[in-house]
């Protein structure tokens, strides 16, 4: 009995370190195989590409840890990006437009939370519904054509650099990582997230208020998706209705690759960061090596399957 548990603990540790080891191995292999890989420019470019997925995946980590899933993140990203760009195009200021975008993301996330808690809809179905709905709203709002960004200050959010070197999105990613990490491990809120995922009934009986918690958890996911949407819009200089399609799956992949259990209750935020980096560097490496994009998908799929197989627990 005792030893089985030690094994499972050792397994968890291995699985946790697994993502880190995987990332390190990938780094070494790519450094050897491509001379262009280990350059400051390339690494920073990858970090910038990863930042959008990482921001979404941080929110997704909270949702998955609490035993849920959020498929609507990509759609929220697109709508909030479009609304922010639209408000600026209508002559509103940067702060108001971005603030409205963030607020919209928070509210949309809380709608997911309400559907899941008060509506008692399974998270997969609830967020599948809002994903489809919001994508449609975005398409009709933009009429299918991109909304260009005119505000040059706004363009810095995603396109600017610190010290002429580090892209601002990378800074946002690390700031969000530190804040979310603290939220998860240092606050009562974070503790309750893990408790809900571990045993919802026990959490409820211990006085954890499930509905407000779920509103907050999905709200956080929506807020981070909105932030990612604003950063992406800024970097691309335009908002597109189809932005963020499939991002929900990349975010889930990052969370799972990082060793967080899809059934909830066990996981860590650092793993999600590593998972997002793993996906980013894998894409970059395969590009540098000239692997066709068809095969890139095959490789990515295999990596995800390996991670899920490691997550398998008796």
């Amino acid at each position, binding site marked *: *009995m005792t030893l089985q548990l030690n094994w499972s603990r050792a397994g968890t540790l291995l699985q946790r370190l697994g993502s880190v080891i995987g990332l390190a191995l990938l780094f070494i292999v790519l450094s050897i195989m491509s001379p262009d890989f280990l350059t400051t420019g390339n690494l920073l470019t990858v970090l910038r590409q990863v930042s959008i997925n990482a921001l979404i995946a941080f929110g997704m980590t909270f949702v998955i840890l609490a035993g849920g899933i959020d498929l609507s993140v990509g759609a929220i990203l697109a709508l909030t990006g479009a609304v922010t760009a639209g408000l600026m195009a209508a002559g509103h200021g940067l702060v108001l437009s971005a603030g409205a975008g963030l607020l919209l993301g928070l509210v949309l996330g809380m709608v997911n939370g309400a559907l899941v808690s008060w509506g008692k809809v399974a998270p997969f179905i609830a967020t599948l519904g809002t994903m489809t709905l919001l994508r449609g709203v975005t398409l009709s709002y933009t009429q299918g054509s991109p909304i260009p960004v005119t505000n040059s200050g706004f363009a810095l959010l995603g396109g600017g650099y610190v010290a002429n070197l580090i892209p601002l999105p990378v800074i946002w990613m690390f700031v969000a990582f530190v804040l979310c990490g603290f939220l998860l491990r*240092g606050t009562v809120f974070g503790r309750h997230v893990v408790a809900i995922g571990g045993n919802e009934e026990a959490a409820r009986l211990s006085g954890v208020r499930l509905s407000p918690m779920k509103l907050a958890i999905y709200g956080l996911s929506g807020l981070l998706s909105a932030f990612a949407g604003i950063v992406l819009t800024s970097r691309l200089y335009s908002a597109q209705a189809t932005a963020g399609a499939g991002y929900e799956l990349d975010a889930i992949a990052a969370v799972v690759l990082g060793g967080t259990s899809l059934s909830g209750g066990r996981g860590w935020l650092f793993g999600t960061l590593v998972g997002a980096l793993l996906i980013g560097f894998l894409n970059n490496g395969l590009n540098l090596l000239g692997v066709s994009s068809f095969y890139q998908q095959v490789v990515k799929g295999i990596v995800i399957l390996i991670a899920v197989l490691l997550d398998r627990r008796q």
Partner: protein
Amino acid sequence: MNAPLVRMQDIHKAFGPVKVLEGVAFELLPGEVHALMGENGAGKSTLMKILTGIYAPDSGTIEVDGKPASITTPADAEKYGIAIIHQELNLIPALSIADNLFLGREIQRFGLLDHRAMTKRAMEWLARVGMERLDPGTLIERLSVGQQQMVEIARALGQNARVLIMDEPTAALTEHETNTLFKLIRDLRAQGTGIVYVSHRMEEIFALCDRISVLRDGHFVGTRPVPGLAFDEVVKMMVGRTLDARFPTRTPNIREVRLKVEHVTGGMVKDVSFDLHSGEVLGVAGLLGAGRTELARLLFGLDKLSEGTVTLDGKVVTPKSPNEAIHSGFGFVTEDRKAQGLVLDMSLRENVSLPRVPARAGLVDRPGEKKQTRGLIDALKIRTRDMELDVRALSGGNQQKVVLAKWLALKPRVLILDEPTRGVDVGGKAEIYHIINQLAEQGVAILMISSELPEVLAMSDRILVMHEGRATALLEAHGVTQEAVMTAATGGK
């Protein structure tokens, strides 16, 4: 005397450096009900897992019918006619009785399922366990726990089991179902089946079993015939010392009325009224399904109250959610600690502070939390190496103490205990009783639901008896007999 059905000798088993069994012997005769006892972690489960081929022993011999047997897989055990009825039943709820009975060994005809043959055979098997009234086409999910257990036994017998291992078989059964099970066990014994009975319930073991074998810390302590055996002797064999008393005594110091429950109605609970005093232990007795747990859920705000009022220290509270109940001063130790009491993948520290995490402005006060946990570990004598270990790794008794610790951290004014010692070994029980007494002495008002009558009689100051959702009696515990409680519990006058 016949050759033993099973003889296990000098069994050793270690998991890595942890020695779980060291030279254990066990013998089962045909037509015998043999109790296997020992505290949690003594090695009972491991021994039975070796007998059923789930684990391989490191050394030692197993004989079946006097001949050496090699049991290395569950299929081997089945071949030798050894079957285990698990505490958690292994039936598929959405399939019928017949489907479950023949799962994995379906009768086929031209490659198609032969439903008629299976139904006919299923009826024969059900008749052997006295369940001939059940239709084999009934879905398992429509059966009571007791009936499901009978189906499991029928499946084992249908596979020609001659050795039946039962692990806490009565834990979830009603009084009536327990009696039915005991009658079946006696019938099987008369037919020559050997039964290994694993349980913590002394009364049952003394009523049912022929011999008792005791394990302690992986060692074989001894086998004794039940007739002429004293209760205290068994306890001594199990814990290696004489317990001062099975139920520690307490001088009641009953103070003012703390909780006033008036005409509480909701769900199956109908018009229940009682007073609970500070420093009092009010036992709640009744058969399974009498509405005891439902009453507790109403008081704790888990289910909706349709009528009645609840007054705590002179203030009407009537909780609408567990959160409100906790803020009013209620604590609730639920009957199912794994499903409702604990987050198994969280550490002891995190579980203990779940109802109220020591924090300032939402930020966890880690040193304060550790200090609080350390204090509770000491106060409740929770045996663990490390408060950071997942509670999954703790024994049943220690897990139950963690559930208690959760609530003690809050200093509740009213503590509801639902089956506080279920699945806890003798030593652990005594410690939990001691904690309950201490709490009462500190002035906590305690409502203790229990299906173990000796526990209710010995621990309570007064006893509330329920039957079909109603309170049928409120008795002074002093001098009351089990018969008086049972009469009220069965609705008699």
